[in-house]
């Protein structure tokens, strides 16, 4: 159980000796994640939070059989770190780093595709399968096991939704933050089939926002999923043409507004809500009916 990661996922932390890497390694370990290796060039041989540090990903992988990498490497070197993980054959790379130059991302997304590596992010909070594993920076205490899969373009808004679901007594099967940058490795449409195929998932929550057309494309996919879908879209009050967030959302075309996305999702059968609380209540009502 768990989409993309599971209890026995063997996690490698790139940039483990940095401030963020070290801090979140401790949190992941505390959550019960199998963090088996770290990589920081020039720091091979050290130990961080009991985790051995290697010079290169390929060495770390050979020694520890790590299969998932979580990247905390600073933005100027983050794409290189992701490329290294892909070349070393890791199947999943989660790039937490914010502020990666966008053309670096464009290049490394293509590189990952060539190497058959799935990239989540950059500029994302990672993945949590509550009660099993945490691969990223999501605050574990805000999540609990349950039947709701959460896919989100926003990290903190996903925590908010998880908290609201928790208030309704609902936990999450998996929560994946895909990242807020204009170019990301994995989008809603890549994940929806995986999430729908997960037997632990009874409902799907999509947390989208203005900008891009990922939600509209996701909408086209919903009817075939066989799971109720609930959506929350941020940016109703956002003016067109203004970039909301650093690398983030901007309305360039009419179909990129909240109202257009709401219409597309509703037409595809999704329940679109206007606040985390309303969304949590809608999910709870639906799951009570069906169970």
């Amino acid at each position, binding site marked *: 159980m768990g989409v993309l990661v599971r209890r026995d996922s063997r996690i490698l932390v790139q940039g483990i000796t940095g401030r963020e890497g070290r801090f979140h390694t401790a949190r992941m370990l505390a959550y019960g994640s199998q963090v088996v290796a770290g990589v920081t060039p020039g720091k091979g041989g050290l130990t961080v939070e009991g985790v051995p540090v290697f010079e290169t990903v390929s060495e770390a992988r050979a020694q520890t059989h790590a299969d998932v990498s979580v990247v905390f490497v600073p933005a100027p070197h983050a794409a290189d770190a992701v490329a290294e993980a892909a070349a070393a054959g890791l199947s999943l790379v989660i790039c937490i780093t914010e502020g990666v130059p966008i*053309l670096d991302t464009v290049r490394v997304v293509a590189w990952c595709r060539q190497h058959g590596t799935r990239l989540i992010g950059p500029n994302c909070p990672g993945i949590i399968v509550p009660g099993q594993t945490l691969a990223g920076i999501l605050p574990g205490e805000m999540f609990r096991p349950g039947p709701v899969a959460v896919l989100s373009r*926003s990290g903190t808004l996903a925590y908010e939704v998880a908290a609201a679901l928790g208030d309704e007594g609902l936990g999450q099967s998996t929560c994946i933050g895909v990242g807020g940058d204009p170019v990301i490795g994995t989008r809603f449409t890549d994940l929806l089939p995986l999430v729908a195929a997960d037997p632990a998932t009874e409902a799907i929550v999509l947390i989208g*926002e203005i900008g891009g057309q990922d939600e509209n494309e996701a909408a086209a996919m919903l009817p075939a999923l066989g799971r109720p879908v609930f959506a929350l879209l*941020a940016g*109703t*009050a956002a*003016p067109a043409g203004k970039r*909301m967030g650093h690398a983030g959302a901007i309305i360039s075309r009419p179909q990129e507004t909240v109202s257009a996305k709401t219409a597309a999702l509703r037409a595809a059968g999704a329940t679109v809500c206007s606040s985390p609380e309303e969304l949590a209540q809608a999910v709870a009502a639906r799951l009570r009916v069906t169970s």
Partner: protein
Amino acid sequence: MGLLEYQAKGLLASAGIAVPAGRVATTVTEAVAAAQQVGLPVAVKAQVPTGGRGKAGGIALARSVSEVEAAAQRILRLSIGGFPVQALLIERAWAGEISDATRQLEWYAAVTLDRHEQSLVALFSTAGGVDVEVVSRQTPWRMLRLPVAATGSWWPFQGRELVARAKIETCWTQPLNRLFAAMVNLAYREDALLVEINPLFPAPSGELWALDAKIERDEAAFFRHDQPPGAVTPPLDWTTLAREVSRLPEAQVAAVLENRARQAGLAYVRLTGDIGIIGNGAGLVMATVDAVQRLGGRPADFLDVGGGARRERVQDALQLVAADPQVRVILVNVLGGITRADEVAAGILAATGTLAERGRRLPLVVRLAGNRSEEGRALLSRSVTGAGGPIHVASSLTQAVQLAIETA
């Protein structure tokens, strides 16, 4: 961040793209010298980091030295979109600027990031010029669009494709291939998310000339490039900023605050209400703005401190929002993850301390959750009676929003 026209044209020239002869001038004297050097008639163009300078009177054609003097004098006194004109580009005037005869020959070429393609795309139209946005809205088929390889390679067939679809002479294939290969190369070299040439003039000689140009760089990549002038950030001083803002006409406040926020590395958009909004994560901040509006309040801004913000950054954020005279209450909504709520709390206290010293006492509504939120709330509760305005600590977003609306 957008480069000024002369900077953009310098980069185009360095990539082998033809641009008109031109020189930068910052005084009337320099402008006259520049005009004599490039040869009359010249175009005198305000160099400001904003659009609409044509309509604002920031461009003039000058046929004589006295016309250059008059134009330079007038334009150097302008302020366009909140930006005082500090530099002029004196450029050899182009046929199309003198007569309308060649206006039909204004093409458009751009290389820009396309979210949907997840790569750069090349845009090309033979209907360029000032109305290109109208063209691309009303006759979208006239705006051709080709994806560019993630690796930045440009294939010769792509030029043939543009020529065939635009229904122009095949003799333009080579020039277009050279142009776009250079533009793509430039985009990668300079981390530009937009390289736009409009108008692009197809000279009878077979050369393509960049008559105006816009280049926007990815701010995330500044570390590997020379900083454009003005990108070096002085520390944010509240008193200076608040004084500057208070003197501006309302129409210019947004541009100045947004520019200052960009320099401070904050993602900020000014809106038109009275509740200042600060949070971490674009989605969360947008949702907070939405909630304020939905519950009947009027958001004054969107401000995202980003992930992992330390206290200094939070302090800057609060000071920036507090410098906006329309703000009557500030709502801070932070969900700790990579950001630590105790750092945020410390930043809030530092800011309210400074603001109180300068006599700006604003009520704050703070909602902290997640990573280190208990520590953060403890910090705030110990200091509620501190130097700033009252700090209300809310437990949920809805409660926080309601409190802010009541307070405003």
